[in-house]
């Protein structure tokens, strides 16, 4: 197994990996090729993954990772309450059938959740829409509107509003453009993507 260090990870995953306590139990929902999982294993975490793409699951299992092929929209309900210290949903919220339900499931299965997503209110998006009147195709959202899996585009403000509506506490947040971390001011138009750490209140 390649012991991917945090520096090899995509920036949102690197932030998540850096802020997950060593030795904790983690569920990575939509774990892809298992890059975050491998990094967390290196921190002594007990990590499980869910991934819908069979070829990626095969890659993960061949790396020795515990990954279940499944659809997070349907399968999260089968995980016990707070069976994990953290649940991670990276770049997947906007593909969910019902992001609100998925977020609720996330903070039920894990005591805390890390969620990263592309911010649709990023200024380049706004500009592309304003100038061309067409759905933007960008570095972070490279697929045309008719083929994209991103069926529920979301902005930083939308996410914050949803978290409030669901009674979630936003513990921490990080904002990025390309690989550069931004200060939080004006994040809704300046950030290309965001990472939130949330928990169920109370």
């Amino acid at each position: 197994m390649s012991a991917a260090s945090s520096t090899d990870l995509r920036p949102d995953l690197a932030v998540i990996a850096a802020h997950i306590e060593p030795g904790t139990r983690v569920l990575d929902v939509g774990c892809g090729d298992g890059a975050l999982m491998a990094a967390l294993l290196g921190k002594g975490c007990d990590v499980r993954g869910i991934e819908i793409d069979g070829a990626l699951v095969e890659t993960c299992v061949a790396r020795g990772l515990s990954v279940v092929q499944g659809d997070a929209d349907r399968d999260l309900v089968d995980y016990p309450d707070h069976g994990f210290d953290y649940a991670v949903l990276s770049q997947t919220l906007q593909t969910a059938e019902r992001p609100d339900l998925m977020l609720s499931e996330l903070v039920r299965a894990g005591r805390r959740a890390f969620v990263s997503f592309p911010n649709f209110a990023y200024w380049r998006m706004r500009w592309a829409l304003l100038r061309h009147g067409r759905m933007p195709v960008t570095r972070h959202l490279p697929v045309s509107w008719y083929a994209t899996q991103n069926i529920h585009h979301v902005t930083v403000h939308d996410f914050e509003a949803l978290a409030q509506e669901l009674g979630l506490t936003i513990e921490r947040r990080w904002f990025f453009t390309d690989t550069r971390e931004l200060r939080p001011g004006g994040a809704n138009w300046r950030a290309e993507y965001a990472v939130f750490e949330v928990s169920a209140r109370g």
Partner: protein
Amino acid sequence: MTETYRSSTLQAPLALDGGGVLTDVTVAYETYGALAPDRSNAILLCHALTGDQFVASAHPVTGKPGWWGRMVGPGRPIDTDRYHVVCANVIGSCMGSTGPASLAPDGAPYAMRFPVITIRDMVRGLVGLLDALGIERLHAVVGGSMGGMQALSLAANWPDRAARVLAIATTARHSAQNIAFHEVGRQAIMADPNWREGGYYAHDDKPGAGLAVARMAAHITYLSEDGLTEKFGRRLQDRAEKTFGFDADFQVESYLRYQGSGFTKRFDANSYLYITRAMDYFDLAEEHGGKLAEAFAGSQARFCLVSFDSDWLYPTAESRHVVHALNAAGAPVSFVELSAPFGHDSFLLDVPALDRVVKGFLE
């Protein structure tokens, strides 16, 4: 069954789920690869309904290569240069382990006096063998189909005996459809006049016709419709025209007849009755208070389940059912549905993705 196979006679009698006790139980087995000095590299391979211990060496009756030679051997995914592979014939079978064809203490074959056994009873026999071999903890237990049932049963009932559990194309319980197909096979055997209420061992005429029909019916369930269509379609067997008779006009008929008659040369009809019964009785949740998650509550093992998209005998939903239970029990589990055209038999055939998953999971 006059051949002698490498075997171990268990010291303790086996107390069975059905209430009976089997004494002087023989478990025939083969091993491949060297056992490490610390005995940490053993893998127990569990065979399917009509399988046997000759997983990677020639079958002594048919001369055919081992049934999983593509998976087990030097440099193979289950690498015998690294692992000590143990594969035993299950009790109730007919390749050297105690079964209905074996002699009872009174010197006559058990025949139908053999007690009805369960999958867990088979695993009791396997655990007895591991004890005899001095293997306390397995690197892994691996099985497909009925072998997967044994792997799951071992994990549930002897949770300390295996560090890894790999169950392929299997289920935690036999469905009504599974039981139904098995009942067709059993009735075919019992309808054969040569079956003689199971007491055919002293007679020259064996219930081969019934056993062949049982095998033919079962064999269809191991394949997929697409696989059958691709392999045979409606093609005729060595003839240009239909004969307007009941000879094997179609290639698929000829193939099934060949499979059926070949099977009777290596398998005992009563063993077929007993083993299919054990599979039908299999319901891992039932053994554990009706909750499958309870079955795995004490397990420290890592699990991997694999299903095939064309397998309608033990479809993906059955593997998912086990995965959900393992998740509920908090066990580390991997699961993947692989795409392969061969139906249930995919686990025995050329599916490179399975090789990668098996190799990766065992490391």
